[in-house]
């Protein structure tokens, strides 16, 4: 047999006729893989989220307490705490669904905010207490958090966060760049979930204060002031966990009108409300 050299290459298209390389374009492969994996993760996340919602009602108060006992409850001494405890207890009795016994604490932060935690615990920031102008406003926010506790949302949120952490840890082990991509795509879903909860709690709060005071006055005052204070760069609706101030205010005002709750006189806060050292 005579040796006859023959080139198998095509100089115009270097990959043509190369049986060792898959013909698929890498960008097409990237698109298919990312969309397929993202869709799968999303479905897993939704299913596990539903599982959390199914499990939460079966978690006993005792178990919830023992979970909560492991979590830190960072509160500061504040002369307003006894008043907050008393008001919370009164509101609890007007709530459409009993949230159970509540422990209230003042959280050292200048940001105006309030949080509900597992085990019937509620944190109200110093910043919020200094900002508030009537008892009705304060009651609205406390009742909103009572709504979270009555619906056991802190447990739900904790469960969802666990699911999220679990899924992302799976992928972080495979490869961290893929993990980072998966994590960032899941955050938006988490926010959308929270927003529905917030609207439900606003409704819960409105019902509570209108039963307690006999009218819906003061329900939107605080949110209105918040809206005016940050008219600058506002966060787009889909990036925020709470309904936008505007949307929230119009929702509450519509509810007050529809249910004929009325706008009664506001109850003032006790004397010497704002801490002296804050002045």
């Amino acid at each position, binding site marked *: *047999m005579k040796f006859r050299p023959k080139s198998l290459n095509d100089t115009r298209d270097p990959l043509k006729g190369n049986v060792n390389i898959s013909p698929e374009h*890498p960008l097409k492969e990237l698109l298919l*893989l990312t969309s397929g994996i993202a869709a799968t993760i999303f479905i897993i996340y939704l299913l596990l989220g539903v599982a959390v919602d199914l499990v939460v009602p079966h978690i006993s108060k005792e178990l919830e307490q023992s979970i909560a006992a492991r979590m830190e409850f960072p509160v500061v001494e504040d002369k307003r705490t006894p008043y907050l405890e008393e008001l919370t207890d009164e509101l609890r009795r007007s709530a459409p669904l009993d949230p159970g016994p509540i422990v209230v604490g003042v959280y050292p932060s200048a940001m105006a905010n309030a949080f509900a935690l597992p085990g019937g615990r509620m944190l109200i920031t110093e910043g919020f207490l200094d900002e508030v102008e009537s008892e009705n406003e304060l009651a609205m926010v406390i009742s909103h958090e009572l709504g979270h506790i009555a619906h056991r949302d802190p447990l739900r949120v904790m469960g969802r966060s666990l699911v999220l952490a679990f899924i992302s840890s799976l992928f972080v082990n495979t*490869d961290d760049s893929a993990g980072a991509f998966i994590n*960032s795509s899941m955050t938006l879903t988490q926010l959308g979930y929270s927003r529905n909860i917030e609207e439900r709690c606003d409704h819960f709060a409105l019902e509570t204060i209108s039963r307690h005071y006999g009218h819906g006055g003061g329900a939107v005052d605080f949110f209105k002031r918040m809206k005016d204070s940050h008219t600058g760069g506002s966060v787009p609706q889909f990036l925020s966990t709470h309904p936008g101030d505007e949307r929230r205010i119009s929702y509450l005002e519509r509810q007050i009108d529809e249910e004929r709750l009325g706008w009664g006189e506001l109850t003032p806060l006790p004397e010497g409300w704002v801490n002296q050292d804050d002045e």
Partner: protein
Amino acid sequence: MNLDFIIFISLMVLGYTAGSLAERGHFKSLIRREDATMKQPVVTFEDGYELPAGAKFRKSTLVSGSVVISIDYFKRFLASLRFLVGGRVGAYESLLDRARREAILRMKYQAGGADIILGMRVETSTIGGRRKNNKGLGSVEAVAYGTAVWVDEISPQIT
């Protein structure tokens, strides 16, 4: 938009553009040099090479060629997604193809004018690669080796 995400996208774009350009250039160069060295016969068998009557081995020696090629960020990301679902890792196929062909070419250059290279083998291995924090970029090494043979007074012929 957080910083990590911006860095990630930039690295992907950089990896894809630089990687594709380098790959395209390499394939062109491979084809040109393969065609130029086409007359250097290389076979994988070790025995069965019989000398025509009257001819005899003048010299034989081990020749080898090796190359190390790195993957780029884009290829690694594509492959890491592929690891989740399985299937052909297209991103690595072209890389290995380039490495094998380059190694064979370099082996031919080392043989420089031998009548034939017998018993050619190609091996690949990974270099560098995954560190503990999973941040390492892997490289592939391909080694081609064989026995270069010079024959007296005959033109290369396989019987």
